[in-house]
């Protein structure tokens, strides 16, 4: 029987719960072999959520031998994810950021159950990749902010009355957010998204809130604490920059 989660707002997916229950009955040698299985289609493959549970359980019970076998496998999976999502091309010193994220993840296990860390790993037992996503975004955001790599592009000063120049492209972004990219979109939209990420903060907020998250113009204005006209202006300015970038592709 899997140990209940401390965070009562969370629940493990039933499939994960079942796999944990089975793994808990297995001996050290079997777990060691299963942890090294790298094919997710194999019946022996242990999802990362299970590895997190088994690691927490082993550490709580003082079974450090099991922890030493499972931890490298979990870290290697997290590292593979980070190499894809925080590649060297994304920022200076990406390797050091990946190291910090992995280090934070590993330390969560040694601090598990202590004050301020009572149930943080519960999130990782429910949806490992999405919990890791929070940790990654948090670290990358801090690193970029510390290293001042987020250099604002100059605001466009005369775009107030310009229409939204490329609604079609941004509509594709919105569609991609909800259903995934088409083959054609998949070719060049990643570049558009990178450009979107580099827009000045005000424009980025307006575009994401309005066109990707799907707020109305009025809601977007309210969240940004400006009037609707300013939102229209920011969207137009962003469209102009994105259109220029698209033409360069």
């Amino acid at each position, binding site marked *: 029987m899997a*140990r209940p989660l401390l965070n009562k707002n969370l629940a493990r997916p039933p499939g994960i719960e079942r796999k944990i229950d089975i793994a808990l009955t297995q001996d050290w040698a079997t777990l060691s072999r299963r942890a090294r299985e*790298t094919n997710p289609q194999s019946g022996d493959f242990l999802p990362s959520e299970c590895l997190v549970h088994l690691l927490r359980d082993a550490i709580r019970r003082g079974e450090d031998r099991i922890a030493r076998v499972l931890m490298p496998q979990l870290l290697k999976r997290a590292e593979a994810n980070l190499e894809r999502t925080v590649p060297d091309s994304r920022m200076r010193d990406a390797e050091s950021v990946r190291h910090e994220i*992995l280090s934070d993840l590993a330390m969560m296990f040694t*601090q598990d159950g202590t004050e301020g860390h009572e149930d943080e790993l519960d999130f990782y037992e429910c949806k490992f990749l999405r919990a890791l*996503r*929070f940790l*990654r975004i948090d670290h990358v*955001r801090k690193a970029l902010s510390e290293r001042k790599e987020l250099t604002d592009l100059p605001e466009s000063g005369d775009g107030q009355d310009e229409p939204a120049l490329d609604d079609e492209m941004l509509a594709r972004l919105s569609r991609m957010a909800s259903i*995934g990219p088409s083959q054609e979109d998949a070719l060049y939209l990643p570049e558009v998204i990178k450009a979107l990420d580099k827009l000045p903060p005000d424009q980025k907020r307006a575009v994401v*809130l309005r066109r990707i998250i799907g707020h109305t113009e009025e809601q977007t204005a309210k969240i940004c604490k400006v009037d609707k006209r300013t939102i229209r202006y920011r969207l137009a300015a962003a469209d102009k920059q994105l259109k220029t970038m698209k033409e360069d592709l």
Partner: protein
Amino acid sequence: MIMTAATQTSLRDAMYAMSLAKAVPDAELLDEFARLYPKYADALTEFAIELAIDSLMHRSDEEDVPADADAISDVVSRVMSQFENQLFERRQARAATPPARAATASVENPFAALDRQEFRALVSQLDVNSAFLSKLRDRTIEPISIPKAYCRHLAQEMDEDADAMAAHLYAPQESVAAGRQLYKAEGKPAATARQSFEEAVKTSGLSEEQQRRLLSFRD
């Protein structure tokens, strides 16, 4: 993901919860979180923006697995070394500190409220014997070996929440001594090695039929 308790939740937990809730945040989700955590509405909006862009950049919700299960990179090797050191320090700190009752005080023992008569009535109700029920009460059974189905059955018979029952079975043994019917001896009870569920069933003096029924609980 059901978010019900807005109070006492840190911004970090709210961000984790938002990250888990949907692959790409939408207006409805952002509104819900702003309502649940008004204090953090601005920070959560900023986070949702990062999350939306990140989701578009890296859409895969599938595990990234290393090609070679045996190769360990320098980074993982360094982190493992940190992990080993921290784990060692944790063990040392634990060994140096007397067991803190406060640490387990929040886990309630559902048997603690039963007096001797009620305990005996429960023995009959469950069709077990006192020795076996005492093992469940005193947490001397390895919790991972207890079938979930039996935990649920026990919780149901005692009119308890299944999660609370599981939390009791998982709690350390030292917090048990609060029950009214528990100990006659003058000496303080010491934590004993835990048996597996099967071992506990077979070594409690239960009848063949009782043993067969208990061991038929499987997940």
